[in-house]
């Protein structure tokens, strides 16, 4: 019996999900629990398992398509079974959810499945394929897609008037690998005719270009204007290597997760006036305690201690656990600590909820679980939203000090650097201690310097207070 594979609902906040990759192709056998596709939300890349066993009969929503949760994306059944005729374009499935809408100006899905960064591609690519001849047929890469809802989202901003060219002129322009939109038409109504293309080539010294046959063919295929290459080739003629260099230098869309990071951090850094306060914490005794605890069987991380110390400090300074837009201030009712985790594709910030109510052992287990699942791409979106304060620990990366950008929705972030042995003056004696710098970034709209200093020193005090840890572990 044919069963519909629906996009799972991943949490309260996610309404649309983008299909990144189908791990199974039509005709492949699928076991129950086997991963069949990879999806991407605003927060992370996830894998989707099949609830059924059978053969993948049909893929309704292809790679690169964004669909609402609960939408049918594929069918699984026995080979040869009839599949209901569901076209993605007729379902509301392909419409952009509100989340995606906000990304509107930046991306749109293209037929080959990759979001194209429109503004930049137009600016940099010598021959922007999507701008060429909407009437010309196969050149209209992406300006009209099967997803009807996308049509309105893209308006060529360059020339509102209709671009008109004769078929022969277009053929010549294509074969010559030049951008015909640069040509002034002399035909009726400004239509470009073949002679216009010839005159244009002549006037721009096209015949003086030396191009290898394959390079010309490749340029035509890749939509590269050969005239833009005059004098820019590495040798004395334009070769395949020159074309490949240009193709490799073309802007490529950032991964969805990177685009999200870019948007959120730019927003934060431009809206919230950041200022930075640094302290040095003496971690000698905490390190000794960690070593003892490890010998006893639990390998606590420095982050575990920082989370607890920060949660205690946030209880003392509730204003830091609030957020402001410059006009109002909203206090968070719980202390939910985000832990920045670096993945290959970008940063994710899993959240330890109610960190102030957890024991150190509970924090350790929670952090260990979240970090491991973040690394394997198995965090649920709900586990990565609505933190109230964030900790970014680069201690493993051998850095002396750094500053972090505040996570949107919060007012401060703590950047934790590496511990290192240093000569330190204690009781007027120079002694060797392991010191670690911590830098707090604060939103000055809400937090003043004195508050930041008191808050940060509170974290340090808790962190260095060895009797506290002996009590809590």
């Amino acid at each position, binding site marked *: 019996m044919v069963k519909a594979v629906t996009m799972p609902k991943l949490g309260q906040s996610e309404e649309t999900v983008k299909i990144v990759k189908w791990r199974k192709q039509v005709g492949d056998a699928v076991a129950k629990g086997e991963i069949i596709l990879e999806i991407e939300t605003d927060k992370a890349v996830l894998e989707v398992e099949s609830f059924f066993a059978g053969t993948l009969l049909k893929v309704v929503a292809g790679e690169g398509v964004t669909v609402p949760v609960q939408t049918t994306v594929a069918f699984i059944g026995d080979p040869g079974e009839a599949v209901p005729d569901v076209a993605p374009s007729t379902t509301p499935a392909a419409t952009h959810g509100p989340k995606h809408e906000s990304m509107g100006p930046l991306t749109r899905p293209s037929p080959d499945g990759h979001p194209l960064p429109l503004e930049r591609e137009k600016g940099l690519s010598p021959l922007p394929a999507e701008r060429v001849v909407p009437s010309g047929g196969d050149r209209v890469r992406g300006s009209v897609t099967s997803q009807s809802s996308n049509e309105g989202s893209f308006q060529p901003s360059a020339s509102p008037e209709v671009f008109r060219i004769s078929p022969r002129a277009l053929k010549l322009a294509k074969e010559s690998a030049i951008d015909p939109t640069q040509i002034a038409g002399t035909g009726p109504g400004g239509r470009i005719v073949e002679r216009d293309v010839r005159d244009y080539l002549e006037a721009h010294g096209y015949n003086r270009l030396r191009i*290898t*046959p*394959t*390079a010309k*063919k*490749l340029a035509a*295929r890749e939509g590269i204007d050969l005239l833009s290459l005059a004098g820019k080739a590495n040798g004395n003629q334009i*070769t*395949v290597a020159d074309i490949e260099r240009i193709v490799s230098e073309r802007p490529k869309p950032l991964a969805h997760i990177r685009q999200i990071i870019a948007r959120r951090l730019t927003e934060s850094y431009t809206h919230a006036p950041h200022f930075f306060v640094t302290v040095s914490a003496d971690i000698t005794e905490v390190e000794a305690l960690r070593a003892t605890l490890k010998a006893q069987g639990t390998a606590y991380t420095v982050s575990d201690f920082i989370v607890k110390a920060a949660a205690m400090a946030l209880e003392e300074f509730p204003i830091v656990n609030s957020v402001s837009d410059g006009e109002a201030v909203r206090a968070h009712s719980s202390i939910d600590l985000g832990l920045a985790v670096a993945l290959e594709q970008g940063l994710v910030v899993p959240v330890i909820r109610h960190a102030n109510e957890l024991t150190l052992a509970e924090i350790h287990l929670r952090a260990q679980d979240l970090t491991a699942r973040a690394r394997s791409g198995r965090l649920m979106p709900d586990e990565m939203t609505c933190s109230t304060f964030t900790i970014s620990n680069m201690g493993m990366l051998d850095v002396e000090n750094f500053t972090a950008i505040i996570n949107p929705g919060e007012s401060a972030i703590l950047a934790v650097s590496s511990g290192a042995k240093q000569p330190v003056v204690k009781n007027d004696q120079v002694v060797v201690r392991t010191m670690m710098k911590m830098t707090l970034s604060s939103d000055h709209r809400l937090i003043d310097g004195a508050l930041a200093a008191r808050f940060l020193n509170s974290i340090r005090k808790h962190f260095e207070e060895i009797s506290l840890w002996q009590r809590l572990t």
Partner: protein
Amino acid sequence: MAAFDLVVIGAGPGGYPAAIRAAQMGASVAIVEKEELGGTCLNWGCIPTKTLIASSELLERIKSAESMGLRVSGASFDYAAMADRKDQVVQKLRNGVKQLLKANGVTVFQGCASYQTRNRIQVESNGASALLTAGKSIIATGTASAMPGFLPRHERIVESRGFLRLRALPATTLILGGGIIGCEFACMLAQLGVKVTMVELLEDIIATIDADVRRELRRHMEKDLGIRILTGVTLEEIAADDRGVRGRAGQETLEADLLLVALGRRPVLDGLKLENAGLAPNARGFLDVDAYDRTRVATVYAVGDITGGPLLAHLATSQGIVAAENACGSYLHKNETVVPNCIFTTPEIGTVGLSEQEAQQQGRKIKTGKYLFGALGKALAIGEPHGFVKWVADAETDQLLGAHAVGPHATDIIAEAGVAIRAELTASDLAHTIHAHPTLAEAWMEAAHALIGEPIHSAPPRKPS
């Protein structure tokens, strides 16, 4: 102390063209050679072997003359006379190099070079020594046949250079190593009536070339020339005495009058005292160079076999010219993307560019087009209808990336393919280039027709019914 802008060490096909080019650019140039001008290629490699092969192939052709309506009886050979001719050819070319160096004002030093510092080179010869100061230097010392330690030292066990000193042929020969050198000697000896057995450790002979080309060569060597080829086995317990050489291959004991060792070549850097110039060979014993043929010492360049690339005279020459230009202030990128490789077996093999097996290793999508000499008028007319040519092209653009020929004059006709690949022609450009009829080179055009699916003189591609 003599001072030069450039000192070239080694006067082989890498070194002497470098010296000439630098002199032409106005530099004062010295070249140091410890043996003979022309190096391995001219004295103990390409030239002497091709001279002998020309004789053995002519004999082979004469023996089969009857198939072409000729009656020749009593065809035989005098190996000593063949060897004399070889020496004359070598002598003539060697003199040519000497004249060229002289005409270009290059000072030739006979002796062994060693670095004292990166800019001071000592030349020693029979106790006499000279000290040269060198603004820059080019190392072009090349390679020599490898003679691994497990081989006994005996006059019946020789490598290629030792073989070329012989004045008479053995009746039977064992060849250790089925690479290019081993196969060339095997074909020549078999044509001169020597009973040849070849032992190769790998699963096939000349493993670097495509399997279909290899198959064609091996079939001819075994079936027509009667060479016994043992692959995938090692030759062990090698011994030699006055009566002959012996070795065990698997269960079998092989015996012959002579063992020819063709196990590859080793870098020659002995006595050069590289460390005084701040240089050291890499793990394989060769010198690493960058895209401008510079070693890691700014004033020292290296070219040819010693840089660890393919062991080809024409590649060494190309590198030598680039290094010379760069040593004289140019900034040339070396060009090694399209290097033809010619194998003078019977049948001959010529290859250039990408092979099918390389494309497979790179995961690159390709198309191929093949044409058999058996279907080509000229090949039939000259009585050599064996082998084929093959193009390898990019699957999407049809760009010609590689060419492989096995058959009559394969080493000559490969030149066209090299030009086509270097010029980045597509298969259709080549297919639509008029080739003279009747010639062997037509095969390239026919193969290009086949590649683009428009064959005229071969069966059309099967259409799905």
